[in-house]
């Protein structure tokens, strides 16, 4: 079916200024992504999958202006963690600020240099998981990213990485529009932790494709930047082999618009995927977690844990689905999405879904929205804990189940400290 003319025009306008690198295998992959995008067109508010989040700021021709935020009142995120740093400023690789890209057991190549080189494993990954993730729900902004990403990293892990690889996204220009695309392949039995932090740009599009082979382990922790006016759309596409482990946690504090999609396929038996998020917003804040977990093998476990703390008109969205395919017996699926509304102006919209085609599965889901527990608050205060401290304790307690998904205690502590800082600054 041909795309309506208006949709064709909007898409043409959006991509007119973007550069399309056509050389080599990467060019071919980009071409296929562009074809996918052209068939879908850009998302619009009336699309079912965008019912709760207006995509106009994400699809506009120019990135809406976003003031650069001074976050020097806190130590840099993950500062105390020994890691290999790769820095992008407004989406442009910063060699001076980055570490040497050599790490035992890990091959790292920049996407911008990969087109001409024959990186066979990346050929089988770039745009491939994104394309698989277009069914049954279309994700045009991910296809746009695959077609036009200007840089990113290709990471192949063949052993247990000595330290995390840390992707740092610096935002310096009020009008920057960054598109980055990363691929990570964790080979059988290997293990890596990928850290991401920073706002990246006024508008940031990012795709991360992750293949976790048999018995491999992948950990992902990110802290999206504190810039109030930034916009971001991110996608994680993951495919897990037998006995593989995938764990992803995201902290979002501030940001006028954030849409984080996670599309996870448990393709091998006994694979485990946990995806979690803690989002805190005050005022002009719209945060959307859209998750799709497919159980395609037996005895797999998946957990989705999403918590949001909202005040002064902030909006939280959760669209989460567990799809259990025929034959995916003994599936253990869990999904929880909860919001803590600190006033009556804030809003939480949740659409939890289960679709099950196997008969021997255990799936549970829950979604709640509530205020601070006044009885607990009084109990704490009656012991001498000042009201604001008591409130922070209860908010952190509310977020604890999501933070518990971070395995590394030092990283979890860093995230907890960010949240405490945020709560302290947003007490009033």
């Amino acid at each position, binding site marked *: 079916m041909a795309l309506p003319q208006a949709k064709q025009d909007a898409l043409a306008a959006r991509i007119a200024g973007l550069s399309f690198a056509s050389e080599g295998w990467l060019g071919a992959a980009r071409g296929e992504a562009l074809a996918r995008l052209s068939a879908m067109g850009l998302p619009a508010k009336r699309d079912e999958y965008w019912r709760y989040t207006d995509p106009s700021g994400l699809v506009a021709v120019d990135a809406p202006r976003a003031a650069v935020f001074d976050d020097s009142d806190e130590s840099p995120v993950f500062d105390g963690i020994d890691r290999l740093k790769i820095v992008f400023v407004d989406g442009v690789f910063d060699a001076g600020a980055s570490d040497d890209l050599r790490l035992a057991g890990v091959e790292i190549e920049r996407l911008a240099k990969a087109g001409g080189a024959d990186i066979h494993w990346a050929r089988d990954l770039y745009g491939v998981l994104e394309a698989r993730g277009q069914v049954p729900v279309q994700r045009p902004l991910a296809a746009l990213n695959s077609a036009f990403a200007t840089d990113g990293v290709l990471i192949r892990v063949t052993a247990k990485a000595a330290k995390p690889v840390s992707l740092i996204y610096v935002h310096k220009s009020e009008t920057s529009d960054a598109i980055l695309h990363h691929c990570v392949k964790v080979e059988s039995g290997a293990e890596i932790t990928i850290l991401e932090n920073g706002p990246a740009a006024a508008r940031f599009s990012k795709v991360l494709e992750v293949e976790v082979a048999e018995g491999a382990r992948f950990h992902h922790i990110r802290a999206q930047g504190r810039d109030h006016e930034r916009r971001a759309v991110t996608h994680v596409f993951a495919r897990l082999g037998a006995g593989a482990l995938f764990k992803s946690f995201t902290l979002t504090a501030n940001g006028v618009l954030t849409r984080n999609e996670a599309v996870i396929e448990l393709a091998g038996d006994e694979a485990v995927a946990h995806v979690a998020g803690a989002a805190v917003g005050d005022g002009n804040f719209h945060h959307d977690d859209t998750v799709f977990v497919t159980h395609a093998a037996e005895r797999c476990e998946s957990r989705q844990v999403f918590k949001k703390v909202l005040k002064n008109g902030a909006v939280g969205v959760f669209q989460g689905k567990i799809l259990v395919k025929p034959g995916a017996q003994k599936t253990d699926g869990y999904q929880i999405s909860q919001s803590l509304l600190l006033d009556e102006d804030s809003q939480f919209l949740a659409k939890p879904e289960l679709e099950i085609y196997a008969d021997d599965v255990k799936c549970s889901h829950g979604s709640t929205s509530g205020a601070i*527990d*006044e*009885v*607990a608050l*009084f*109990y*704490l*205060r*009656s*012991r*001498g*804990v*000042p*009201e604001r*401290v*008591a409130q922070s*304790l*209860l908010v*952190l*307690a*509310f*977020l*604890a*189940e999501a933070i518990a998904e971070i395995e590394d205690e030092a990283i979890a502590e860093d995230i907890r400290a960010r949240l405490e800082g945020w709560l302290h600054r947003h007490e009033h």
Partner: protein
Amino acid sequence: MLRIKNLAVKLEEEDKQILRGVDLTIGAGEVHAIMGPNGSGKSTLSYVLAGREGYEVTEGSATLEGEELLEMEPEERAAAGLFLAFQYPVEIPGVGNMTFLRTAVNAQRKARGEEEMSAGEFLKVVREKAKKLKIDADMLKRPVNVGFSGGEKKRNEILQMAMLEPKMCILDETDSGLDVDAMKLVSDGVNALRDEGRAFLVITHYQRLLDHIKPDVVHIMAAGRIVKTGGPELALEVEHNGYADILAEVQ
């Protein structure tokens, strides 16, 4: 220590009068008990003194060592030395019992301008006091009161009291839900804190608890007032004859 004068209180939402002029004076070192039928206002009195929302004081005053409690925030009352052991201790998922205790102890010290307790010192003191109440390391690590049995919750209240060292302790039906052994344990914990600088107000339905925590004065409360005051023998009278005789006599 505690001086309550003509205290009248109604429920904010229902416009229902609960306390109708309570007068009560408790001196330092004394243990007073309040007994009374259901609905007489005993728990309301304890909540109003601790500063729970939802009540409107229409008349009267309540001072702790001369300071007006009713004008303070709940945390200020705690720092001033008031402690309420809850009838139903609250479960707080996600907040570790130890974190809670330490935050409370140090918040009170800070409010009083005292030096905060170091992590090491705190650990040492809390372990020692927990041991006496047969509270094990696991209970200290778990979230506040979550998954605790009725008896464990009450012991945890007494542990908090022992750590916070308040001047005025109010025990609201601390015996409810306790078996004989647990009641002994809790009472021993309370008795260990008896001190000439500290006063207790024990609210209970049953004389049983008063066998363990021996009161100096017993009050009978009915329909929002203290209707009779006497010695420990008054509790025995209630145990044998119920409230009916006393109430008839007062009326």
